[in-house]
């Protein structure tokens, strides 16, 4: 398999980006396609390891060496088949995944890892282009009805798997279109929405029913749903956003990232959006939170024409290299610079916001920060300490809060009497994804707390197996097998 000496011959390459000036003019994706030959060479870099740690690092268990080899040999259709065997939506992960596989890639021990994600994206895009991705409805239907609540990646994956097993699946989505965070969280410049739509078309053709604008727990009572369906899979996500309850938090101009991004995505889609318009145009923008959502806010702000964009991160600046205590193949906390960062944002680390300052109209005009340091006590969580005398005032007109999510909403849980942990994650183990209420399953962020899209798809797939087993006694649906690398 693969080219034995490929990794010695070729350097890592990924798709390049369009120049910043150009790309911030619109919300389109801005990666520049690679030639087939180059992609094959990238596939050739894969070493067909005796133990492919990538395959372990990937929460889906993607058969990475196998599809890399197919790409190297120019067998794109076979590659697509292998890829789809473990991943329902490679076009999403190929764009959005932070690629733990690449962090675990053996080549990554002392070289640049194989560009797995880029290969993945190209496989699935080629497959769509060539018309290989088609609806494949089940040959037989069982008489079982399954409700999937939430149409994010977990919900969609669970739905497709359960539908493949022959069950009649209805997906409930409270927003106007399916997709969850994919649609309303991820900006178009990272994934244009037709990518979701084209996949949804296939799901619909395969026979999955979507009911949008239906808020389970409010429009339909959860008990009712549970009674009407043979099984319910909750994939509602971890939607409760973390606040910053400091002085001035209610000023106009202090906005949750999700509100900002959701509105903009609807705007780009030509949809109406509720509430007041939030725009970064001609404003000094400060994004609080150095994660992916933060980045999305930065890129969106630039595209809206912000005067300046700064990004605050309360944690210290990580090194570009792996820290020693987070060795290969584990997922390291290291400095990640997104394409949005490169569009001109200034990043500040070890900084904590103390207070928002408003003008007399209640409009935000600045904020005050203090520098912090993390005191490490062995065996305990690091403790945050403010450094005296480092207070500083920053002028700004828009603050975007991108500090993550604290857990899931409890409406359904309360109606059904589901047990949850203190973080409001619904309790269910990965052994069977069962909640304490028979017939009710939970998967994705709603179970594990906020996480990555690959985890969501993975949970959806795994849960589907257990739902199927619950309904039928056994299941032909695939499981990913053992081998997930833990976080350390």
């Amino acid at each position, binding site marked *: 398999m693969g080219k034995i000496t490929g990794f010695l011959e070729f350097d890592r390459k990924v798709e390049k980006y369009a120049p910043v000036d150009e790309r911030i003019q619109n919300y389109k994706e801005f990666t520049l396609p690679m030639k087939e030959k180059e992609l094959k060479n990238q596939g050739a870099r894969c070493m067909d*390891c005796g*133990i492919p740690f990538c395959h*372990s690092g990937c929460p889906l268990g993607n058969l990475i060496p196998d599809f890399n080899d197919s790409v190297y040999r120019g067998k794109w259709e076979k590659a697509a088949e292998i890829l789809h065997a473990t991943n329902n939506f490679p076009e999403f992960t190929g764009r959005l995944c932070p690629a733990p596989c690449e962090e675990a890639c053996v080549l990554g021990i002392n070289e640049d890892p194989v560009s797995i994600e880029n290969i993945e994206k190209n496989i699935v895009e080629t497959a769509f282009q060539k018309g290989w991705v088609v609806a494949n409805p089940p040959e037989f239907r069982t008489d079982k009805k399954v409700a999937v609540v939430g149409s994010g990646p977990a919900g969609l994956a669970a739905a497709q798997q359960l539908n493949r097993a022959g069950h009649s699946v209805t997906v409930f989505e409270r927003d106007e279109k399916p997709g969850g965070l994919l649609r309303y969280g991820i900006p178009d410049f990272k994934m244009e929405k037709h990518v979701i739509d084209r996949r949804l078309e296939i799901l619909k053709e395969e026979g999955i029913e979507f009911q949008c604008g239906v808020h389970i727990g409010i429009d339909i009572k959860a008990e009712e749903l549970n009674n009407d369906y043979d099984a319910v899979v909750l994939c509602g996500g971890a939607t409760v956003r973390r606040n910053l309850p400091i002085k001035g938090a209610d000023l106009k101009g202090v906005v949750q990232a999700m509100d900002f991004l959701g509105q903009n995505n609807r705007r780009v889609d030509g949809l109406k959006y509720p509430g007041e318009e939030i725009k970064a145009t001609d404003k000094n923008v400060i994004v609080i939170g150095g994660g992916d959502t933060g980045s999305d806010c930065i890129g969106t702000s630039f595209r809206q024409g912000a005067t300046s964009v700064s990004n605050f991160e309360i944690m210290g600046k990580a090194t570009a290299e792996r820290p020693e205590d987070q060795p290969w193949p584990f997922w390291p906390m290291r400095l990640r610079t997104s394409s949005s960062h490169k569009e001109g944002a200034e990043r500040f680390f070890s900084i904590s916001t103390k207070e928002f300052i408003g003008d007399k109209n209640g409009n935000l005009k600045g904020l005050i920060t203090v520098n912090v340091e993390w005191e490490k006590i062995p065996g305990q969580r690091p403790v945050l300490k403010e450094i005296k005398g480092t207070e500083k005032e920053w002028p700004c007109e828009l603050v975007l809060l991108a500090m993550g999510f604290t857990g899931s909403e409890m409406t359904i849980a309360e109606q059904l009497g589901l047990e949850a942990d203190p973080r409001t994650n619904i309790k269910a183990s990965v052994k069977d994804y069962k909640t304490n209420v028979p017939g009710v399953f939970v998967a994705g962020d709603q179970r594990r707390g906020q996480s990555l899209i690959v985890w969501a798809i993975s949970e959806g797939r795994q849960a589907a197996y257990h739902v199927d087993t619950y309904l039928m006694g056994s299941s*032909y649906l695939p499981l990913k*097998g053992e081998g997930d690398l833990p976080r350390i």
Partner: protein
Amino acid sequence: MMKRQGLYLPEFEHDNCGAGFICSLKGKKSNDIIHKALEILDKLEHRGAVSADGKTGDGAGILIDIPHQFFLDECDFEIPKAGDYAVGNVFFPKKENQRDYCISVFEENIKKQGLQLLGWRNVPVNKAIPGRIAGETEPFVKQIFVGKENEDQKDFDFNLKLYIARKVTEHTLINSKLSESKFFYVPSLSTKIIIFKGLLMPNDIKLYFKDLMDARVVTRLALVHQRFSTNTFPTWDLAQPFRYMCHNGEINTLRGNVMRMRSREGLLKSKLFGEEIKNILPIILPGKSDSATMDMVVELLLMTGRSLPEVMMMLVPEAWEKNKEMSEAKRAFYEYNSCVMEPWDGPASIPFTDGSYIGAVLDRNGLRPSRYSVTKDGYVIMSSETGVVELAPENIEYHGRLEPGKMFLVDMEAGRIVNDEEIKEKIAKKYTYKKWLDTNLVHLKNIPYNDCPLFLNEASLEKRKAVFGYTLEDINTIILPMGQHAKEPIGSMGSDTPIAVLSERPQLLYNYFKQLFAQVTNPPLDGIREELITDISLTLGSDYNIFDITELSCRKLKIQNPVISKEDLDKIKNYDASPDYKVVSIPILYNIARGHNGLEEALENNLREAEKAIDKGANIIILSDRDSDKDKAPIPALLACSFVNSGLQRLGKRSKLSIIIESAEPREVHHFALLFGFGASAINPYLVNEIIAEQIEEHDITEYTFDEAIKNYNKAIGKGILKVMNKIGISTLNSYRGSQLFECIGINTKVVDKYFPNTPTRIQGIGLYEIEKEVSKRHKRAYQDQHIAANLDLEIGGEYRWRRDGEKHMFNPLSIAKLQKSVRNNEPDTYKEFAKMVNEQSKNLMTIRGLFEFSNYDPIPIEEVEPWTEIVKRFKTGAMSYGSISKEAHENLAIAMNRIGGKSNSGEGGEDADRFYKNQTGDWRNSAIKQVASGRFGVTSDYLTNAQEIQIKMAQGAKPGEGGQLPGPKVNPAIAKTRNSTPYVGLISPPPHHDIYSIEDLSQLIYDLKSANRKARINVKLVSEVGVGTVAAGVSKAKADVILISGFDGGTGASPLTSLKHAGLPWELGIAEAQQTLVLNDLRNRIVLECDGQLKTGRDVAIACLLGAEEFGFATAPLVASGCIMMRVCHLNTCPVGIATQNPELRKKFKGKPEHVVNYMYFVAEELREIMAQLGFRSVKEMVGQVQKLDRNAAIDHYKSAGIDLTPILHQIDVPKNTKLYNTQKQQHHIDDSIEFEIIEKAHPALFRKEKISLDFPIHNTDRAVGAIISNEISKIYGAEGLPENTLKLNFTGSAGQSFGAFATKGLTMVVNGNTNDYLGKGLSGAKLIIKVPDKSTLQPENNIITGNVTLYGATSGEAYINGKAGERFCVRNSGAHAVVEGIGDHGCEYMTGGVAVILGEVGRNFGAGMSGGIAYIFDEKKTFEKRCNMEALNLLAVEEDNDIKELRELIENHYNATLSPLAQRILENWEDSLPKFIKIFPEEYKQALIRLEREKLETI
């Protein structure tokens, strides 16, 4: 024989021996011959062995003419004239009452045959002679005298009746319920010869049997033998000689031969025997040794009217198949007889006699030494060694040796030696064999192809793949490379997946069987380099009565490669040109709905149908699993094949037909090997054919057409099978077929007894129910009622490369990540996580040790347990050569182990002398263990001198019975230097050690190495398999200091995938069996027992220790600690972490540090200490073998593992209280007796002051390895430099023992006036050896054998001048010595990688096989050379270049000056005429390497 207990199975005992005979050509009878013959044994004592009591030998005996006059005098009853009566010594029970019964039965049967009982004579014996152990089984010996029915009775008839009477008596008494029935045995009952033998030391025979000392006991001939048995439960009856033969070596093919003989019994018919024929069955009594068994068949064949030489030709044929020089008549004889009898093949020198003829044959490989001398006063002396009888040089007519496949025969009546050609041509022309073959034997390739049935109703290819359990890995990793490259796929890093019975995934039945392989007691073969002695063709059809010698016997179908295509199978199905061929197809399918009952019934049906087919005249049946569908599932082909095979055997009908398998199941070599091993004669893997078609369609296979790709695949399997056969030392598929050389692991006895009778299975396991369950699981998956979109059609596999959804592996991402983190950051807690994972994982049905739990806790404070620093002294790292791994990785391990006082292992690659000295920081890169493997790379006196332990690698877990290869491009100048070879010249490690073809050879090598370094322990590395305990007992008797038992799963730099998975057993079985057998024999305390094979944690060590190990080896785990991430690309040189690579760029990526390895060892030792504290052991010593602390973990429950029975592993041998279960005493090597100490005393001025001196000594064949001790002393002082040339000259007179000049170093010149035995100049390290014909001798040196086999094996430098001919394998693996010789046997210059060989006389066959370097010059006066040369990669050139001419002339001049060789003189005197007759042999690889080196030299300038 000891009874079966624990893991010990008596049937796996082996023996090897010393043998010889003397006879008077002039027919002169004397008592002196007996003494001379016994002197032979005396002089061969080093080839025998002694039991723990120090007195009981493994058996010895002598065969002589019947001393007629003596009996006339002695007997108190009347005796007719010589030849008209038979006499024999008979062994009886000790107890009189039982004895009387035996006598009465015997007498009765004699009368029944109409013969006359003349009388009995008590044989006078000295009861004080036998040792304690022998005394326990000492029989009462009486002589019986039997007369003819009447005077007119013909000799043949008389013999026949005697035979029947004896056979029937044997059967009756063996089946009787007498408590001492086993004592009854008839060593001989003959009109010509009589045998005296027993469980005696050779020099005790005549003291025990007083008759032999009587001057009136005279004879013309005497055949003697002494045994070296691996076991210590030898018995009196198994002492040799047997009635017609004795045997030095081992019959490898025995199991197949026995099975086939049994099935022939049904066809036996003879007018002479009439109805009596039934009463002599079984022909082969069970429980006898290989030699005894063969003797029984010889006896039967003699009764068919064949002569003794003809019988020997049938049983031990030459390698005729590929011999182009053989006469047509002889070829036809052999080919005809191959249809009648498969070869009884082995490393075997078989002296035989019927009193009229005395002679010997040698196996086709020539693996046993047999030398003979003919004296001017008319005596012929033959034995394993020369020099065993003192002969004056001037009395020698000539010295000869027995050549491979050849017969040496003395016609006693005619009083002359009959040469091989003469006797064989005569026999071959007795019938018109050639004509018979031409009209009867059909060759598959000549059958026309007419039409090809299509199987339209079959399920889709994808479905069938699933039914038969194909994984994507099977298709991509196994089948593809074979179709594409005609080669078996290669892998590395061993196996860490569960054995079949512990796997949660449905396994093919094949995976429950492990291939057996040869180690120590017989050699594996090299079918690649010695292809001409191998053959995989088979003949199909019915067998016939062996009493008839008619053309009917060869009316058969011959297939060259029995792995056949569908087209071939169609041809066979449709062949109807001859009414004698009838082919019947039997479906092997069962009704899936009926589950395991369905399977059982279907199997019974198969057998019934086969029987019916036979009754209707079929002679070929095809067992076919075509047409399986939703309702009918395939029966595992192996199950059906073996059941029909053994079932028909039981019914006595097996010989009437051949079985062809048409199955979708077999895909890898192992599968095919099993099917042949359990009786198939041809196999068509039709689904593989279809998969290959698909691969061509999808352009996975390019460059080949479908037919070619199928051919490639079949060829690859054929080659693979050859390798599997070679592993156990078998050269022809004809003898391998039906031999069942496998062990089951994880199948219960019920199934084995019924379906695979006589296959060892020791820990039980699954039954038919579970077998069916596995089939139905696959079937269900294939025919699942629901198709799930996007699922892969087939399972991923994951056997060879880890996959989440595939087979489990012990080393997986997490365990590796944790281990590396723990050692790098010195985190004991992280190690504990690792250990917990591995230990629990193994409990989770991964390994046998996982099934155990500790019990009988007796906790003590951990402080009382010996400290970790003591424990790690017992730890070793595995043998990994510099070459297979990088310098950085190799030295890292050495430094680490030296820091903690453990031992690292050099592996088979030599070691840079620079590493023998500590560096400034005190770190030491010297490997404490130096390995000596079959390639002998870098093994010099200096290398051995710098070892604390020397390990002889008999086998390697990942590929037991196989050699290795370091391809030329990997041999960079640094590696070439440490291996004493030429850069860029490929290096081959042969499958066998060419100086170990049997146990006594191992004993010799141990002696050699001990001589080369008296302080070093000698360690013998074995691989776990059934019978390894017996082998270990033998090795202990061969005086190894340490025995290492390796698990099959150990790592490797490169191995065929088949070997990686399917040969050898887990160490749990091996170590337990070794411990039990050694304790049982009271041999345990003599040796240290070591264990390795995927040891990872303290728990692993604890279990190994409780099972009997006291030292422990780790290889993969310390490598992982050093950064290995199990890429499994060691064989590709692309290791991305700089471990298993020589690529300088990749080597830079090595990040391991000695601390990492030290930390790992520390963690393991600490974990062990915790366990020790719980169990109550203060030291490892106390813990060894305490199996009562282990128990089966009751919590483990899985449908397959439930049937496993661990009690045989946990069997505690009953021993007296004070018996120690660990090493307490040192082996007695008897090195002190060497003449070298006397030499050293006199050689002081040379050794210490470098003064030139010359000394004279007599020498005998019992003086072995002379030169090694002196060289050791020189190396200690001067290192590899040695002394200046010719400083110490030693002149010897006589016959030197084996290994003369072994490892002899620079500055020594050693001269022998006389001759030498095998292994001359083994590992020569710079000395000069001169072997010349004594001055007084009248011999023509060039026609005279002067040295034995395997000369200059692994020599690295030095010179040898040999004034006469050498035996087989001259200059094998020479890498630097310059040698001149006057003629050589077969396989000359095999695997040679450097140096120069000048051969002035005739050259045997297969010259230069595997020769990759060095130069040979052949004086080809008779122009025979080209035919005998292995032309694969050699250039044959004229000697034209000035440098060559100069070098050649100089060497011949040296030879002349050293030996006064008349031949050399003639050549030199006629130099202008002689020169054009020389051929220069220049290996192509060597040529390319020299060109490359020249280029590199220019580049650096």
